[in-house]
C-alpha cells in the first residue's frame, strides 16, 4: 500500500445565505455535508456529480480556499483544517488548482511569463535565472513550444486549449503533490478535450502527482482516474475503482448517470434515455433520509424516506450509500 497523501474526514462546508428578520434565524446551504475521502500519493480520483451537488465546493474546501465548517483535512499527516493564512503557505505550494474556464483563470493583463512567474515570486524564488529556467521547463512540459513564441503573449492571444495548458503549467510550476482539476475540459472544444486529459494523465504519471478530477461527465473519467466518487446533494453516494463503477454501478443514481452518457451507436439514436424525474433537493433544507429517494426508481417506502442510509462496503473497495445493499 502506498503512502497516504490526503485524508478528509466528515468534511462539511455550509454557506450562510440569509438571516431572518433582525438576524435571528440563519439559513445555510449545505454544499458539502459530511464527506470522507482518502487519496494516496500519485493517485488520480474523480468526483462526479451533477451541477450544484457540491463537488466544486468540496474541491475548493480541500484546497482551503474555503474554511471548512466541520470535519478534518489531513495532508501528509498534518491537520490543515483550520490553519491561518500564513501557516497555509507551504500547503499552497504543495497543491495546485486547474479551473473550468481557462480564459477567466488567467489575469488578462499579464503576459505568459508574468503569469508563470507569480507563483515563483510568491514562494520566494529570488534568482531571476532560476525562475526563467523553471518557466521554460514547464512550458516545454505542457508543450507550449517553441517557448519564445509564447512567453510574451497575453492570454487572449492564445487558443482555448493553449490557455488551459498554460493554466496547467501554472498549477504544476511549484511541483505540487496534489492537483485539483475542476472540470478542466468542460469549456473546451471536443477536439482538444482528449488532448488536455492526456496531458494531465501524462503529468500525473511523470510527476507522481495526486489528482482530484472533478467532472459532471462520467465518460471522461476513464482517461486517467483510478477511483471514482459519485456525489449527490452534498453526499458521496458511491465510490469504487473506475472500471468497477463503469461495469457494475450499484447506486440508482450512478446507474442513472451511466445511462445518460451519449451512445455512439447510431442504431440507438431514437431511443429516449431514461432520466430520473424531479430535481435535486434543496440544500438549505435537505431531506433527513436518503437524499435521492424522491427521484429513486427503486425507492423502498418506509425506509428510504425515513432514515439516512450508511456507507456500506459491498465489495472490496466498493462503497455504496443505499438501503438496497444494507
Amino acid at each position: 500500500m502506498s503512502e497516504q497523501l490526503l485524508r478528509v474526514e466528515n468534511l462539511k462546508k455550509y454557506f450562510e445565505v440569509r438571516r431572518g428578520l433582525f438576524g435571528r434565524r440563519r439559513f445555510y446551504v449545505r454544499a458539502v455535508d459530511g464527506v470522507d475521502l482518502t487519496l494516496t500519493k500519485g493517485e488520480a480520483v474523480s468526483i462526479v456529480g451533477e451541477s450544484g451537488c457540491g463537488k466544486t465546493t468540496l474541491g475548493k474546501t480541500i484546497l482551503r480556499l474555503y474554511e471548512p465548517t466541520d470535519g478534518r483535512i489531513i495532508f501528509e499527516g498534518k491537520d490543515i483544517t483550520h490553519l491561518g493564512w500564513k501557516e497555509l503557505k507551504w500547503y499552497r505550494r504543495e497543491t495546485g488548482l486547474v479551473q473550468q474556464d481557462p480564459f477567466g483563470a488567467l489575469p488578462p493583463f499579464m503576459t505568459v511569463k508574468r503569469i508563470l512567474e507569480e507563483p515563483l515570486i510568491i514562494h520566494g524564488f529570488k534568482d531571476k535565472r532560476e525562475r526563467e529556467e523553471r518557466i521554460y521547463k514547464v512550458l516545454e512540459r505542457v508543450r507550449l513550444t517553441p517557448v519564445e513564441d509564447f512567453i510574451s503573449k497575453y492570454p487572449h492571444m492564445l487558443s482555448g486549449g493553449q490557455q488551459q495548458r498554460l493554466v496547467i503549467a501554472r498549477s504544476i510550476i511549484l511541483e505540487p503533490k496534489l492537483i485539483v482539476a475542476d472540470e478542466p475540459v468542460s469549456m473546451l472544444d471536443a477536439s482538444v478535450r482528449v488532448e488536455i486529459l492526456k496531458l494531465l494523465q501524462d503529468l500525473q504519471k511523470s510527476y507522481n502527482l495526486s489528482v482530484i478530477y472533478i467532472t459532471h461527465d462520467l465518460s471522461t473519467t476513464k482517461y486517467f482516474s483510478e477511483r471514482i466518487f459519485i456525489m449527490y446533494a452534498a453526499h458521496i453516494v458511491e465510490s469504487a475503482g473506475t472500471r468497477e463503477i463503469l461495469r457494475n454501478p450499484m447506486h440508482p443514481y450512478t446507474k442513472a448517470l451511466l445511462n445518460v452518457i451519449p451512445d455512439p451507436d447510431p442504431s440507438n439514436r431514437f431511443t429516449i434515455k431514461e432520466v430520473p424525474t424531479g430535481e435535486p433537493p434543496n440544500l438549505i433544507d435537505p431531506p433527513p433520509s436518503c437524499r435521492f429517494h424522491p427521484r429513486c426508481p427503486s425507492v423502498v417506502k418506509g425506509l428510504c424516506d425515513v432514515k439516512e442510509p450508511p456507507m456500506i462496503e459491498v465489495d472490496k473497495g466498493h462503497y455504496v450509500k443505499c438501503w438496497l445493499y444494507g
Partner: protein
Amino acid sequence: MASRAKRFFEQLLFYRSAAIGLAIILVLVGISVYAIFAIPYDEAVRLWRAGEQHWLSNPRNALPSWVNIFSSKKLPETIILDTSEPRPGVSKAIVPVLGRFSRIRIEFSFDYQYDDFPSELNLFFKSRFNASAPQLTVHWAKPNGEEYVLNTMIISREDKYYISNDDRLARELRRLISAKVNRTIEYDAPVTLLLFAEEDASILNPSTAKVMKGTYRLWIEGMAFEANVDVDARLIVYGKVYGWAGTDHLRRDIGIALLWGTPIALSFGVVASVSIALIQMFIGAVSAWFLGRVDTVLQRLTEVFMVLPFLPVVIMISTFYKINIWILLLVVIGLTAFGSGVKNYRAMFLQIKEFPYVEAARAYGAGSFRIIARYLIPKVLPTIIPSMVLSVPDFVFLEAALAILGLGDPLAPTWGKIIDDAFTYGALYKGLYYWVLEPSVLLAITSLSFAMLGFALDKIFNPRLKEA
C-alpha cells in the same frame, strides 16, 4: 512593450482631438519646464511678493505690448534713461568750481513717437556728498522748443521726484498753457498730458488732446557747495504697454504669474486627480476584498466624508491656518480620498474579486495585498485612466476658484491669484480686460486640452461605451 506603446499612440493620434489636446498639454509642459528653470520658484515668489518698490520701473496696469500690433494708435513703451548707464541722449557733467563748489548738469533727451500720453513720469536720484546736499532745478523742453521749469529742490542721498504726481506743477502748467491758448483748461489735466500735448485748442478737452511727437529734453542744473560731489539721475517715462502679458496694479509683470501658474496648475490638477483616483481605488479594493469589519469601517467613514460639505470645510481650514498651495493640495486630497468614488470602485472590485484568476492567485498563495495591488487594481486601471485625465481640469479650476475666494496660497503666483487681484482691483470696471482674460484663457485652454485627450482615451479604453 515598445511596439505596444507605439500602437497605442497610433491609435490615440487617430483621433484628431487627442492630437490637439496632447499638443496643447505638451506646450503647457514646455512652458512649465521653462518657468521652473528660468525663474526658480523661490525667486518667483520673491518677485511676486516684492512689493511696489521692486517694480518701480514698470508702468502700472500696462497692457501687453502686442496690442500695438493690432491697433493703429501706438501706445507708449516705457523709456528709461539713466546717467549710470551712459548712452546717446544721456549726458552728465559735474564740474568743480574754485575747489569749493560743484556745478552739476545732467541732460536727457528722447524721441517720443507714440499716439498716447505716458502713464507716469518719475525722476530718481542717487547722490554722494559729505555735508552739503546739492540743489537742483529740473527743466523740461517740448519738441517745439517750449521750455518749463518743473521744480527746484535739495536732494538727499537717495531721492525721487514724482513729476506726474506734482499737483503744484500741474496747476502751474495749466495756468501757463491756458494763457498760451487764450482759453482756460477746465478739466483736471494731469502733468503727463500737459507736458506731452500739443499746445493748441485741442488741449482744452481730454478726448481731443494730441501728443506732440518729436524729441523731448529734460535737463537738470544744480550746485553743490562741495568739491567732491556726484549725482546720478534716472528718468522713467512710464508707458502704457509692458512685456508680453502686461502689469497689474502693483506694477508686477503678470507674465511671471502666468508662467509660474502653469506648472502649479498642471501639478495641482494632475497630482490631485491621479492621487485621489489611486487612493479611492485602493480604499475601494481593500473594502471589497476584506469585507466584514474593515468594509464596515471604511464604508461608514466614506459616508461621513460624502456628507461633509467640501467647500465650507476647505474655507474653514484655510481661514484657520494660512496654508500654502501644497498643503492645500493635501487637504483637497485628504477630503476627497474617501469620496463617492470609493463606492464605485468597491462595487467594481466586488465583481472582480470573484473572477477565477483571483481564486487561482489565492490557490498559489498570493497574499491579500498582493492580490489587491497586482490582480484587482490593474484590471480596473485602464478603464479609469480617461476619467482621471478628464478630472484634471476639475482640480485646476478648484485651485483657481479657491484663489478667487481668497483661500489660495497667499504667496504663490497662480492663475487664480491673478483673477482674484483683477477682480479685487476692478479690472473689468477699469477696462483692463487683459488682466482677466489672460489667466482665464490659459485655464480654459488647459481644461480643453485635458478634455480632448480624455474623451479620445475613453474611446480607446472603453470602446463599448461609445458605440451607442
